[in-house]
């Protein structure tokens, strides 16, 4: 069983539900069996001015008993670069920076710190999605987690990474082969996103 086939199925189903039920525009990084570079995925979201970024995956562990969905948002404190960025943000005026190499560094830093503005909202979005996955799939709550995911770090919008199930677990591997399970997963993610959008609209609009 190949991860990219499963995640493509989930993404295509989710896209249809979101467009039909919420009338939103959904852009996928791929809609067929093609390889898309990791950095290109989030670049596409940034270039499209996307308001939410969902990265859908299938989990794996050498611990075969590990199971259940996991939703992550980025942890920025874990890296040097981010510490440096935060320090720079707090202590310096970016416009004072001079030569071309510094400009390039600045661009890179601004690019990779994009997610710092959206951590709180990413956390909330992750919560909503994880809760829905737990309820609808009746799976063990592994909770919302943080880690320095490359694909999330550069997203300039609320961004989460969803691991729908463990392919390394025999029980979940079988579930992933079942189209009705894939439907449930897509619907769970949709429910989480729609709750987040409702919360966002009622709070900020």
């Amino acid at each position: 069983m190949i991860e990219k086939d499963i995640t493509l199925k989930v993404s295509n189903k989710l896209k249809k539900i979101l467009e039909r039920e919420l009338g939103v525009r959904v852009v996928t990084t791929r809609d067929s069996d093609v390889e898309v570079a990791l950095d290109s995925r989030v670049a596409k979201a940034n270039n499209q001015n996307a308001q939410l970024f969902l990265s859908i995956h299938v989990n794996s562990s050498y611990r075969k008993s590990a199971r259940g969905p996991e939703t992550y948002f980025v942890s920025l404190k874990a890296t040097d670069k981010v510490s440096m960025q935060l320090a720079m943000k707090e202590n310096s005026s970016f416009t004072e920076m001079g030569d071309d190499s510094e400009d390039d560094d600045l661009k890179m830093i601004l690019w990779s710190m994009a997610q710092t503005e959206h951590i709180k909202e990413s956390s909330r979005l992750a919560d909503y999605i994880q809760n829905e996955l737990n309820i609808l799939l009746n799976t063990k709550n592994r909770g919302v987690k943080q880690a320095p995911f490359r694909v999330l770090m550069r997203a300039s919008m609320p961004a989460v990474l969803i691991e729908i199930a463990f392919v390394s677990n025999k029980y979940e591997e079988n579930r992933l082969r079942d189209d009705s399970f894939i439907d449930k997963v897509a619907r769970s993610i949709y429910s989480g996103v729609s709750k987040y959008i409702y919360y966002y609209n009622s709070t900020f609009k």
Partner: protein
Amino acid sequence: MNKKVIYILISLAVIFFITSLIIYLSSSGTFKRVVKDKKGETEITEEDAPELEKVKIFFLTNGSSLFVPKNFEIEKNENRIEFLKSYLDLMISESSKYISPFPEQTRLQSFFYIDDKQMAVLDFSEELIINFPGGSRGEIEFIYFFVNNLCYNFKEIKKVKILVAGNEYKTLSGHLDLENPYFPDYKYFRR
């Protein structure tokens, strides 16, 4: 006195002598003990025995989603790099008794410590990337197995950078960023 009585008396004398000798050696601090050296089991005196340093290694087990601590003793070495090497060797060899978070053929090719950055750099063989099964959880388990264990036991190490075949990679299998070094995150450890 017949022969049987003589044998019994001699045996008692021998037992008394050995017991006295053991008590004497114990009290004088030169009682022999068995320690394991690199060549196998050997008898050495307490005075010659290497001084041991207690360390912990947190392993992945089937019973818990958190890394579980196990205690070990490693021969003390004033050269901290050599000591670190012994620790890494132990981590890797012992991990096969638990759940090893990396592909079997993976080797730690080299490591070094950058003083002014307080950073350990671990360079793994390319099998790590080629045979890595994927998954966020798998990447977290691999990265924090090394990062947390090293930072926990070596206070001078504040962060760990991971290379593969001498090169910097973006990720192991599309998830956690590998371009930056990692600080420890002990939420994955049972303390």
